[in-house]
């Protein structure tokens, strides 16, 4: 992988922040965009834009082709069996809420169980709390080991014949853990439950095969994988999606409308009410082309190497606590620097041009498990280098010195 050539394609990376070259280590929150994605969106607006699925004119069919072409790209990127198994959403959050509202609220009743983990992002936790409250189902957590991972034996014990939904992140946005989705999906299916995967952090970085995982639903966001904000998708098995009722009603999603009764289009359109997010879907398609050209396996290897390097370099710093296991981690490292508050760490790093995340990372229950109120996180993507990690370490040394003097 030629990182220099890749970096060349990201205009935003070539600037100074507070007098220092930008070191962007916050891609887990949102990644930067290559020229090809920015151009694809511009080109669409300059040449092809119109509404989709209704125009008889040329632009109408160009826009429709672009939008449906993007759906096909997503389907093949995830190795879905059919394009209609891909529903465009605003992102992971909307996709997971769609499963919760349309599938789970109808599938659960008192006595049923929904199983999740304490490492979930709020987007894959609160929707299930709400389903449990609305239906009387019980929300259960697979217990975590001290390093934040869980064992398949505990998954076996937690998932029972009463379980209707198992929902879990593929990669933890705090711990860097890659969860054994395929194995958990098998346990879920043996108990008659559906498997829902939060793919927000996995889709940008690794080869994803929804058929091999045998998950029933899979959600992800475009903006974390070089695509624009405001677009993401839900994959769902056709047999399940076909039985689900829409949750948003209006234009585009209808088949036949009468005064008191109406019928819906087939999947995926019945879940895409209103004018869809056309330009951003086109941008997502361009992002997939870009990532595939680099190669998902290459990206996976690169981000893991950087995380391992960062883990080692951080471990050498006195007073640093690192969260999550050392081995097999995806491309991010979450840490604290002694008792310097992560906000203060992030502000000092920012003064050196280094962007990291500080806070609870939308994982308050996990923070409670780790016994901290917040943490700092450096996350890597295909455009990051070992030199970026070295800059981070230098910035942290400066932070230590600064706060060492200041607070003694």
């Amino acid at each position: 992988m030629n990182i220099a050539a890749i970096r060349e394609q990201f205009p935003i990376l070539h600037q100074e922040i507070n007098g220092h070259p930008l070191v962007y280590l916050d891609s887990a929150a949102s990644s930067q965009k290559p020229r090809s994605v920015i151009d694809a969106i511009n080109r669409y607006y300059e040449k092809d834009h119109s509404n989709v699925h209704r125009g008889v004119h040329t632009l109408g069919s160009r826009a429709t082709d672009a939008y449906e072409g993007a759906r096909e790209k997503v389907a093949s990127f995830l190795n879905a069996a059919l394009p209609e198994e891909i529903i465009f959403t605003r992102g992971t959050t909307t996709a997971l809420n769609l499963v919760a509202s349309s599938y789970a609220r109808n599938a659960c009743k008192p006595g049923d169980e929904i199983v999740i983990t304490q490492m979930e992002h709020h987007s894959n936790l609160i929707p299930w709390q709400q389903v449990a409250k609305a239906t009387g189902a019980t929300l259960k957590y697979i217990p975590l080991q001290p390093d934040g991972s869980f064992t398949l034996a505990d998954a076996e014990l937690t998932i029972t014949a009463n379980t209707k939904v198992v929902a879990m992140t593929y990669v933890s946005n705090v711990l860097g853990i890659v969860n054994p989705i395929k194995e958990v999906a098998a346990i879920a299916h043996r108990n008659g439950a559906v498997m829902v995967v939060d793919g927000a952090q996995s889709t940008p970085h690794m080869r994803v095969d929804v058929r091999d995982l045998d998950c029933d639903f899979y959600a992800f966001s475009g903006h974390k994988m070089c695509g624009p904000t405001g677009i993401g998708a839900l994959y769902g098995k056709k047999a399940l999606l076909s039985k689900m009722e829409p949750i948003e009603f209006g234009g585009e999603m209808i088949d036949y409308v009468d005064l008191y009764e109406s019928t819906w289009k087939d999947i995926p359109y019945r879940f895409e009410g209103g004018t869809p997010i056309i330009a951003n879907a086109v941008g997502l398609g361009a992002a997939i082309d870009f990532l595939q050209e680099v190669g998902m396996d290459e990206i996976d290897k690169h981000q893991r190497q950087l995380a391992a390097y960062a883990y080692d370099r951080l471990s050498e710093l006195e007073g640093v606590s690192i969260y999550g296991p050392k081995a097999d981690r995806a491309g991010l490292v979450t840490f604290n620097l002694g008792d310097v508050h992560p906000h203060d760490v992030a502000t000092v790093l920012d003064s050196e041009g280094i962007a990291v995340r500080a806070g609870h990372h939308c994982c308050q229950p996990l923070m409670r498990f780790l016994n901290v109120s917040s943490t700092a996180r450096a996350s890597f993507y295909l455009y990051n280098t070992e030199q970026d990690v070295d800059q981070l370490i230098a910035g942290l040394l400066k932070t230590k010195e600064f706060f060492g003097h200041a607070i003694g």
Partner: protein
Amino acid sequence: MQLDDLYRRVIMDHYKNPRNHGTLEADAVTIKLNNPTCGDSIALQLQVENGLVTDAKFSGEGCSISLSSASMMTEVVKGKTFDQALELADKFSALMKGEPVEFEDYEDIEALSGVNKFPARIKCATLSWNALRKGIEQQHE
């Protein structure tokens, strides 16, 4: 971006030696506020008598900016009437907007003027002041 604008010595002193850190008697007005974007939290307690804040203490978790701001706020608000306290809170908001404001015989707060250049940190600085406003508004009800 000058770190020294943000982390003035006065601020670090309040962070290291917070004033009025702890809890008051059970009958004190208690306001708990969170900063939902970062998970920081503060519990502010006010002892009030006849429209006067006679004592103030705080506890909770936060960064240097939020804790030093709470420390300063509890110092300055003691002995103030509700109206005077709200006026101070307004002044503090103005300070966060970058307006020149003087806190007369309690100058420590002016050290927080630099936060204005770090927009991401303004929420940290205002957390305890928001708790103060909320506590006083409750008394007015």
